[in-house]
């Protein structure tokens, strides 16, 4: 034993190990290997394959789990399908009781789960005990509430069905909670695939499901590697895939689920900025960096991994930060005084080393404190790079390790430019004591979660999720629940749009049919940046009526026209920042001018589509009404202040995507355009519209309406032509952030697949026609929600 006298000299902390006897005993009980948890029982894998699970701190094998096969996944999906009907039919209150029981039991097993998680992942017990496990329990509590309230709060919505959920290794139990709690609350059943490296707390959770008497089949857990995940993604019986993990795999999932009709939410990588202004509390910012990048060994998707410091204070901040790094403790994850535990696996450690080497090679200055590292195990020291150039690898690539890349900026504008200079958009942290500056930068950052004078704060009541290639969809809060619900009408049998063979649009002259006095030729060009523009290719095609008579020509737009339109839309940023009142006024003006030309549009619809005068009048009237509807909404689609922590305002702000593509269907050629474009621009988006190829003239007639209604140049751009070809260009365009597509089934699939490039959010109808005259199907909050993304801004306050 160390002498008290000597400790009085050294004043070391000494060892402070968390006992792991319970977790070890549990692992001992299961030394034979864990099966999958399917239909309320642990079952052996169909083909008997098993994989080893390691403790990365001790480099020892601690368990064996089943390697899930296609057959195992199928068995689990069948069980989940069987359980879906009775589970979704339960009153919300009953589901609430189940979720409440899960929350309580996680709490009652908090010590066991904390220790097990730490052993499996390598993260410090301080974090599993104080963060992972309490937040997991909180998530179930919060969603027990949503189960209770769901029916009343989300009228006209029903659960999606069977959800396939794939979670990462960095927060195994917490990510499980983020996935399972909302799914169950909304009435779905799930098949969850934990990460290959860290399956153990999910299996412990399965035992809790048994303990609380959750109906069998509601939660199924199939362990395994990437191939197991792929089998789950591929399974035809899955209605939704929720994935958290790398952008690379997310992109793959987007591609393979394209056209399947599976609902998809992706929470992917990040390279989040941590911005320190000269008026920040620097000591607080230093602690912020610790919590941003040395939390969970930096294996955090929203880790503040790019340190942007105002030039005048950079030396001071770096000095303080280096001093602070000397007091970090890297070591045994089960020691209560450990700050940084083990990296999850040797392969991850290799990746971190390689990227740090690259950073040094590229000329950045490396600092690592002179602290001790354990002799063995997957450990890596806290690492600070300074003098990093935005173009260097370590400024661009997600390292997923305890490494932060520092660079300086001169002005707030430059800070924002650097911060947004990334393909990701998950989170951001802003340090300034000036509220005007902090909120201004928060508004300008392209990221789903912003923390002011804080970092890595989480709560079940707040949405979490990314912009750009950090994915789409939100987890947590009201906004997260929508990922597990669908409008009830979509679940009812629908009318498939006739994929009627339409002759290819021909640029060749059509046979002349004009008789008598020729009318003055009205050639519809394209509409780009508030101007009519000739098609880049110099081609037009003939638009014919039902009888095949030519009604005139429309421009045959090509990819360059789309490029030009996107450029014009990208420039029209003012529309996204003017007041909602201002946008509402413009929309009212559009309605006014549409009404003034009502007769003209009715005649156009009749001649173009052959509908009756009565039907044409109804469509024009509906188009005017719909425009009013979204003019009304423009200043009312409010965000929220989430109830997260005491003395924090957590602002959920609905922000426009920016540049959106909208591909319109053949039916209701005026009403569909207005039903899709008006909500998009009401929310502040700028759009590139591809109208029906068959009936484009109602849309081209809108040019003059737009011109006379004070719609700023570039806000609405209209490109006529072959919709599926233009849709593909839009889907592949990285400047386009969201794309709505109403058209064929195959076109929907193509759009979803092509959108994987920049992971833009898509909304396709899989060839199912809406009744555009039906307000339930064709207008309302669903459109507004799809026209926006939620940014959650955390603002702690106090003096």
């Amino acid at each position, binding site marked *: *034993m*160390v*002498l*008290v*006298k000597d*400790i*009085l000299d050294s*004043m*070391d*902390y*000494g*060892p*402070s190990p968390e006992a792991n006897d319970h977790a070890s005993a549990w692992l001992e009980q299961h030394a034979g290997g864990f099966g999958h948890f399917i239909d309320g029982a642990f079952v052996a894998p169909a083909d008997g394959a098993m994989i080893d699970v390691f403790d990365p701190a001790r480099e020892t094998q601690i368990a064996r789990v089943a390697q899930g096969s296609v057959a195992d996944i199928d068995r689990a999906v069948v069980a989940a399908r069987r359980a879906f009907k009775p589970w979704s039919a339960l009153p919300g209150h009953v589901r609430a009781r189940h979720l409440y029981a899960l929350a309580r039991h996680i709490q009652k097993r908090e010590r066991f789960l904390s220790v097990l998680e730490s052993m499996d992942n390598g993260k410090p017990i*301080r974090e599993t*005990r*104080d963060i992972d496990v309490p937040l997991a329990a909180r998530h179930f509590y919060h969603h027990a509430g949503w189960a209770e309230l769901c029916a009343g709060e989300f009228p006209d919505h029903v659960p999606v069905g069977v959800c396939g959920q794939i979670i990462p290794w960095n927060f195994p139990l917490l990510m499980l909670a983020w996935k399972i709690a909302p799914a169950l609350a909304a009435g779905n059943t799930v098949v969850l695939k934990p990460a290959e490296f860290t399956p153990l707390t999910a299996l412990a959770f399965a035992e809790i499901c048994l303990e609380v008497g959750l109906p069998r089949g509601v939660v199924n857990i199939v362990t395994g590697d990437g191939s197991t995940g792929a089998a789950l993604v591929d399974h035809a019986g899955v209605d939704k895939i929720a994935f958290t993990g790398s952008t690379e795999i997310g992109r793959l999932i987007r591609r393979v689920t394209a056209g399947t009709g599976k609902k998809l939410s992706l929470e992917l990588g990040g390279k989040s900025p941590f911005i320190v202004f000269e*008026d*920040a*509390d*620097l*000591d*607080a910012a230093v*602690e*912020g960096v610790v*919590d941003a990048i040395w939390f969970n060994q930096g294996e955090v998707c929203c880790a503040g991994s790019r340190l942007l410091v105002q030039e005048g204070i950079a030396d001071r901040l770096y000095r303080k930060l280096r001093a602070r790094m000397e*007091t970090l403790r890297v070591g045994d994850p089960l020691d*209560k*005084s450990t*700050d940084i535990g083990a990296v999850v696996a040797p392969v991850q450690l290799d990746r971190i080393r390689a990227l740090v080497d690259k950073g040094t090679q590229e000329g950045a200055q490396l600092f690592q404190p002179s602290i001790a590292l354990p002799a063995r195990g997957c450990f890596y020291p806290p690492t600070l790079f300074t003098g990093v150039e935005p173009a260097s690898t370590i400024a661009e690539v997600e390292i997923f390790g305890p490494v932060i890349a520092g660079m300086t900026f001169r002005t707030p504008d430059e800070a924002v430019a650097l911060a947004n200079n990334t393909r990701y958009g998950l989170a951001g942290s802003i340090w300034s*004591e000036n509220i005007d500056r902090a909120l201004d930068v928060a508004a300008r950052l392209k990221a789903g979660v912003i923390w002011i*004078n*804080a970092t890595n704060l989480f709560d079940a009541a707040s949405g979490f999720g990314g912009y750009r290639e950090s994915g789409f969809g939100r987890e947590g809060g009201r906004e997260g629940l929508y990922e597990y619900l669908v409008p009830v009408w979509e679940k009812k049998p629908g009318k498939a749009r006739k994929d009627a063979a339409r002759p290819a649009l021909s640029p060749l002259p059509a046979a002349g049919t004009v008789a008598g006095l020729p009318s003055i030729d009205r050639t519809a060009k394209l509409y780009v940046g508030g101007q009519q523009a000739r098609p880049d290719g110099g081609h037009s095609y003939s638009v014919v009526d039902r009888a095949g008579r030519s009604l005139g020509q429309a421009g045959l737009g090509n990819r360059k026209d789309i490029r030009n339109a996107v450029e014009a839309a990208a420039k029209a940023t003012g529309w996204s920042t003017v007041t909602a009142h201002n946008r509402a006024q413009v929309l009212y003006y559009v309605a006014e001018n549409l009404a003034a030309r009502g007769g003209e549009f009715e005649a156009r619809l009749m001649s173009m589509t052959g509908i009756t005068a009565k039907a044409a009048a109804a469509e024009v009237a509906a188009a005017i009404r719909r425009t009013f509807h979204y003019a009304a909404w423009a200043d009312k689609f409010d965000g929220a202040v989430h109830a997260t922590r005491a*003395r*924090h305002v957590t602002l959920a702000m609905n922000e426009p995507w920016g540049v959106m593509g909208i591909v319109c269907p053949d039916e209701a050629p005026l009403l569909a355009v207005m039903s899709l474009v008006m909500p998009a621009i009401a929310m502040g988006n700028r759009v590139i519209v591809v109208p029906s190829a068959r009936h484009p003239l109602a849309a081209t007639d809108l040019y003059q309406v737009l011109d006379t209604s004070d719609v700023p140049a570039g806000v609405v751009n209209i490109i006529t032509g072959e919709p599926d070809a233009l849709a593909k260009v839009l889907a592949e365009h990285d400047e386009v952030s969201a794309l709505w597509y109403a058209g064929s089934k195959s076109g929907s699939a193509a759009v979803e697949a092509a959108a994987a490039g920049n992971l833009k959010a898509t909304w396709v109808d899989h060839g199912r026609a809406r009744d555009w005259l039906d307000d339930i199907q064709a207008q309302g909050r669903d459109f507004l929600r799809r026209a926006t993304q939620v940014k959650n801004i955390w603002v*702690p*306050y*106090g*003096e």
Partner: protein
Amino acid sequence: MRSDVGLGHAPRKLALANHRQRNEGTALQMAWFDAMQVNLSAAERRTATLPARRSVKKEYQAAWLVKAVTCIDLTTLAGDDTPGRVRRLCAKGRRPLRDDLVAALGLADDPPRVGAICVYPAMVGPAVKALDGSGIPVASVATGFPAGQTPLAQRLGEIRYAVGEGAAEIDIVISRAQALTGDWQGLYDEVKAMREACGAAHLKAILATGDLKTLRNVYKAGMVAMMAGADFIKTSTGKEDVNATLPVSLVMLRAIRDYQHQTGVRVGFKPAGGLRTAKDALNWLILMKEELGRPWLEPDLFRIGASSLLADIERQIEHFVTGRYAAGHHHAVG
């Protein structure tokens, strides 16, 4: 070392604790603190999580608690203090832990004693007498403690009186009015005058953080007190509504760190009021070690102003030694 102003007391050896470079202060440097920002929520986050980030167990915990004992300014500041009461406190300060516990800890050769005995000026004489030969310094509050609302001449006179009675340390209170109105020059001048009045006695400046309210004020007042020559900065008189808290302490420690960066001089820290449990003592020791480092875990740079804390530490140490939970009446009262 100090000018002999003793009134009937022979010059006595100053406590070991005082044997270090004193803070001579600097000119008033507004630029060092003018633009200082302190974020309350961030400070609270740091102090809320810090005790959970570090843990000391078993013999380490026992040693840390012994360390805490040696840093205690065992205090009585009550209207009913009498020489008898002060003598009893001094006896406790000389022998804060029972001999059997000290022996069990292996510390019989150099038994722990408290950092100082802290009393009102009128009680300095009895305290000095009671501590004679112990090496334990007597600290006296002064300057119109606790409110500081008496004329400056009287406040300075009080210091001189206490020093004359043999006090080796003077715990002064700053004028809150000066801090609250931003009269930093005025505050600087007063504390500097007090430092001069202290002579060789060390000056501990009580900021009365519960009155200053904002953490920015705390930082600035602390910085000004150090510039004026405070050897310690101290949180509270123990008489404000809110006394020592971890966030306030954190900000004062950061001021000490910044002052050291500017001047190279180490200034001590003393939380006072509200530290009652062994766990509190450990939390503050962890805070000192993490924010300032090992040197601040010694009584020359860290003191805890407390009266009831010692009793809880004794119980915890007895539990460590015997494995049984202790009863308060098994330990001598102070």
